[in-house]
């Protein structure tokens, strides 16, 4: 893919999402994103989402338009939309994390992001990682 971009946004959930709600949302989202060759990761913590989308520039742009317009679930704040050198989450059609540490550690590839600085310094220090860290430190929350 030549025009690889990522878009990262944070949002405030309109209602509290249960684990079941998220699982349902994800199975829906995953399928759509697979068709579009869009990858990424979604985090949810106490009423706030943090979503990284990677893929073709135009496709991501249009997808984000849809997500913003769909006000049933969330109020969206765009953080960044920029070109990236490579896919960071290519193995995932849409990962999910609830930010619980023990759960994170069970998820393949997830724990790297959160288990302290020694691990963090070993992986790509791209923008997605830095923003994930900011979110995990309580930034971009609705309250």
């Amino acid at each position, binding site marked *: 893919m030549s025009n*690889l971009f990522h878009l*990262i946004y944070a949002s405030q959930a309109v209602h509290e999402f249960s684990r079941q709600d998220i699982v349902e949302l994800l199975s829906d989202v995953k399928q759509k994103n697979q068709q579009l060759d869009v990858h990424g990761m979604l985090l949810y*913590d*106490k009423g706030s989402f943090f979503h990284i989308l990677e893929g073709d520039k135009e496709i991501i742009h249009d997808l984000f338009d849809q997500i913003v317009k769909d006000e049933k679930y969330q109020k969206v704040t765009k*953080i*960044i939309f*920029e*070109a*990236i*050198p*490579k896919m960071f989450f290519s193995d995932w059609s849409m990962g999910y994390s*609830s*930010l*619980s*540490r023990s759960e994170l550690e069970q998820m393949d590839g997830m724990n790297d992001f*959160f288990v*302290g*600085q*020694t691990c*963090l*310094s070993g992986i790509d220090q791209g*923008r*997605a990682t*830095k*923003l994930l*860290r*900011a979110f*995990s*430190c*309580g*930034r*971009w929350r609705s309250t």
Partner: protein
Amino acid sequence: MFKGIDFSHAFQPIIDINKGDIVSYEVLLRGKSHEAPWVVFNKVEKQDLPLFDQYNREKAIALASRLGLDRSINLNFLPRDILADEGSCLIKTIEACRRHGFNSKQLTIEITESEFVENYDALSNILNNVRRENIVIAIDDFGAGYAGLNLLASIQPDLIKVDMSLLRHINENGPRQAIVRAMSRVCLDLGIDVLAEGVETEEEFDWLRSIDISLYQGFLFAKPVFESLPTVDDLKFKIPTNSFTSVCCYGT
């Protein structure tokens, strides 16, 4: 075309205290007898300056390669250099890096906003296009002159270098502390690294470290060194190892 102009370069280390190591070197123009940059620039016809700048950068890359550079290299660009000819100077610089065996990841471009930029959109488009080459984009002298919030909002760099005028005696200056603390919060929110430039005293360093700034450049650690890449052992100030506490909190 610039054969008559004798010049070379000095290298000033950039230190990451989280890694306890030198991560990059900023390249600075010098005369052959170590003269300041303006002495060299004065010998260049005004209309030739953009061409000279590019020649200067490519020569610096060649020198860094001869010196065995195995870290990153920081090179300076003016917005008008980048805006001219759709950013061709960036592409040429990236190509020069590759020719000398460097990975584009090792290249940091520092953009100084020394004059008013009229077309932020054009600048941001060009930069977004070279982003895929995996270079690091930095705003230099942040907080001095024109380099400010507009540039930050429109180009979303990977790194900002906080101007030394904001850091001078920061350990005892309330307004500067408030500004730099807020800047560093903004940068955390936007996924931007912060570098403290021109740090001269241990007191300034201690204060900056207390708000979790991890990248440093300044006389406290090392002055620019002519035609040489100083190593960690050459640093005047031993890099204190950072405690690994501040990075992450876990939600429940």
